[in-house]
């Protein structure tokens, strides 16, 4: 640790060195978060089967489809370094063992038991470095009857109940339109990982953290779980799922209500069509209190249908929710989505335009002011906006560092800088196919995208 304070303050996790064997999305989300917080991430791959996300997709004007110019990979792995080594060779394993001595954390997202087979189960890891934290992220976790089953984000969110809850009554579950559990498991893993690092720092003893992508979603659905276990309410029947609503009449349960477990409740609570009628021309409008309902009524010009006394309280509005939604949907068509949002917010009503990625990047004034997509210059794909940092800290900065894991490009500097190898030793390892496959070029042209 340096004794003097840098002019540019260091990130909160400055000095934390991570050996990162993760691939695909959930694991790299974790190490991206750690990089944002200042940790040094050494992403380990073997070029013969590099992280498949490297070829997830390419820019419209890409002239080749290589290891390093896939934009999704670059976005997900910004700020990390790349180390290539054949872990399955004895010499490669020896390099990894020496690196483990110099790391605070090792992370992997292989199928259960793969890392153990390579000789890096937690017992071996702690023998090498007692203070090391070992984090595994897998679909089902490293124990239990389904431990060898495979999942991807969408199958994980199907298994853990999140998909089932979303959609329209009587229709198939709509779930999510992307791999939510890749993000959410990566975020959950970030909490566990930093907690384990804190504990290791205090006690000098590391530990094994076993993260299941499926389980990490259960705590994100807790009220629904309790409704099932405590109230014995099955989330089934023709009135569920409940679309965009927060609460509905529960026809099957004696005049009770079915919650959407959103953490807030109100009527109206919906996404309504707006002028233009395009694919993204919608605006969310919610009234989570009687006060907001009255504000909305006034904003709509107190139309006669809204003046009924039974609509003055939530239970009456739940009873008439279909009718209220129809009325608002015909009124909302008179406004552009941002126009409606601004008008209603001015009247004290919670409203928000449905935003596409384009809307967020080109139209959202709030995100523009928070600089959420900084321009960075990537050596192969040029100057572009990359996803930035979701929170700010002071005095320890959070930032996306302008570097990417160009495959193998940091191997020599890591071996020399961290392991004090000589340039000759490093060249020898490469010549013998330990740090780069013999006879393989430094880049490939995959020819096509992953999917």
């Amino acid at each position, binding site marked *: 640790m340096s004794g003097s304070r840098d002019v540019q303050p260091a990130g909160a996790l400055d000095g934390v060195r991570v050996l990162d064997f993760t691939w695909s999305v959930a694991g790299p989300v974790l190490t991206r978060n750690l990089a944002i917080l200042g940790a040094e991430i050494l992403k380990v791959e073997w070029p013969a089967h590099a992280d498949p996300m490297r070829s997830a997709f390419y820019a419209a004007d890409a002239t080749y489809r290589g290891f390093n110019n896939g934009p999704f990979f670059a976005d997900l792995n910004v700020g990390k370094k790349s180390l290539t080594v054949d872990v399955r060779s004895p010499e490669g394993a020896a390099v990894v063992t020496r690196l483990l001595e110099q790391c605070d954390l090792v992370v992997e997202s292989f199928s259960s038991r793969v890392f153990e087979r390579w000789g890096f189960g937690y017992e071996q890891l702690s023998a090498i470095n007692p203070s090391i934290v070992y984090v595994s992220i897998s679909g089902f976790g490293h124990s239990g009857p389904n431990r060898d089953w495979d999942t991807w984000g969408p199958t994980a969110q199907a298994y853990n109940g999140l998909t089932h809850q979303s*959609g329209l009554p009587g229709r198939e579950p709509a779930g999510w339109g992307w791999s939510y559990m890749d993000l959410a498991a990566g*975020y*959950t893993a970030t909490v566990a990982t930093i907690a384990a690092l*804190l504990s290791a720092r205090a006690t000098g003893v590391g530990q094994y953290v076993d993260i299941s992508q499926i*389980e990490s979603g259960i705590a994100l659905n807790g009220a629904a779980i309790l409704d099932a276990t405590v109230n014995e309410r099955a989330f089934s029947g023709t009135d569920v799922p409940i679309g965009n609503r927060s609460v509905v009449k529960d026809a099957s349960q004696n005049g009770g209500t079915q919650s959407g477990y959103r953490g807030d409740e109100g009527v109206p609570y919906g996404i309504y069509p707006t002028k233009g009628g395009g694919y993204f021309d919608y605006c969310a409008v919610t009234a989570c209190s009687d006060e907001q309902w009255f504000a909305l009524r006034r904003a709509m010009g107190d139309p006669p249908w809204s003046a009924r006394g039974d609509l003055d309280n939530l239970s009456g509005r739940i009873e008439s929710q279909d009718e209220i939604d129809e009325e608002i949907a015909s009124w909302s068509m008179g406004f552009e989505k941002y126009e409606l949002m601004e008008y209603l917010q001015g009247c004290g009503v919670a409203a928000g335009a*449905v935003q596409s990625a384009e809307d967020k990047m080109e139209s959202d004034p709030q995100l523009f002011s928070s600089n959420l997509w900084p321009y960075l210059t990537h050596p192969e794909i040029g100057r572009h906006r990359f996803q930035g940092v979701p929170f700010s800290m*002071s005095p320890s900065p959070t930032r996306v560092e302008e570097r990417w894991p160009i495959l193998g490009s940091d191997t020599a500097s890591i071996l020399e800088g961290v392991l004090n190898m000589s340039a000759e030793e490093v060249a020898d390892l490469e010549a013998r196919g330990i740090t780069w496959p013999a006879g393989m070029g430094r880049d490939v042209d995959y020819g096509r995208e992953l999917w």
Partner: protein
Amino acid sequence: MSREPSREHGPSTRQGALEGIVVLELDEGRAHLAGKLLADLGARIIKVEPPDGSAPRRVGPYHGDVVGPDSSLQFWHYNTGKESVVLDLREETDRISFLELVGDVDVVLDGLAFGALDSLHLDPAALIRQNPDLVYCGVTAFGNGGPWRDYASSDLVHLALGGVAAVCGYDEPHDDGPIAPLGGQAANLTGLLTASAILAALYNRDRVGGGQFIDVATHDVLSLSTEMMIPYWEFRQMNGIRQSGRHGRPYLTPRWNHRCRDGKYINALPLYLDNERFAKMVDWFDSEGLAGDLRASEYATDQLRAERMGHIVDVIGEMCAAHDCDDMVSDAQRRRLPWGPINAPDQLVDDVHLQERHAFVYVEHENLGVSLTYPGAPYVLKGTPWSTRRAPLLGEHTEAVVPREKK
């Protein structure tokens, strides 16, 4: 339920990872997950609530459907392991008590609306004057600046603005507009990153000393949580479209969800069907005469299969329709096809795998004379215990934390 949920997490001689950390929490639904995560890992969370309780106590569902400040299941889940102290921060004496507490804690987790503490003369600067090593974390809807900072919000408003709703719903031609997923995910994602930021700040304090000012905004969090959607726009000028239950794409892909014989849906991912997996799948379907024409040479390579994936998926759908969902899933997984059941929440607690991993735990409600089944640890820290206990009743710990003579 007869199982024994304990997950090596019961009373233990080892201390929780966050033993000794004390957090003062103020919440209206945006910060309480962060507090719960820290509490269950061993931190002490003192939740300061107004006399009528924090807002999530007034959100359903309720225990036995009986409305009351101590019966919200929403509150129960997100407030396990915490203490509840009632202070009326509009009153001078209670403000003084609050500031005294601030002097003794490691973290203030402030989930009140933008500007709320300032208006009580309890702004972050005042708190840090009280405790220079304090980690102050403010969690708001839109942040501390920008044109929308005073805007009203809700879960749905955040899911709309953050880009989540736009890409969730049904495929064309059955699209019925954006359908934002349930479960309170705007606050959930916010809570996960809030807890991460606080822990990083504590790590930094251990390392070099000193407190931290953290600013988390739900709108920023959601806007950065749609995976490939932002890169697709930046690099391809294409927007993601609504496709039920599968990878996010800006173009229509074959469906993954199929209705099984028992009415339950399966998520049958048709990607990564390499030669070996495809051959095993076809042999399996064929053993029941349901392989259709998939043995034909038009399906012999990855490239050819990609061109005809729509038809392959139709054949998968017919096979699913002839079997019960859970059987279909285990038969598929045996062949390394990564398919999964679309479980309802109430089906999870009986899942054998999750039971064996103790993914659910009993939590004692001694005041009600019952033990109830809760979600267990979202992660297994093998070396430090995770444990939980019921959420506090409103003001349950006021006397113990702020004795009357002091108030």
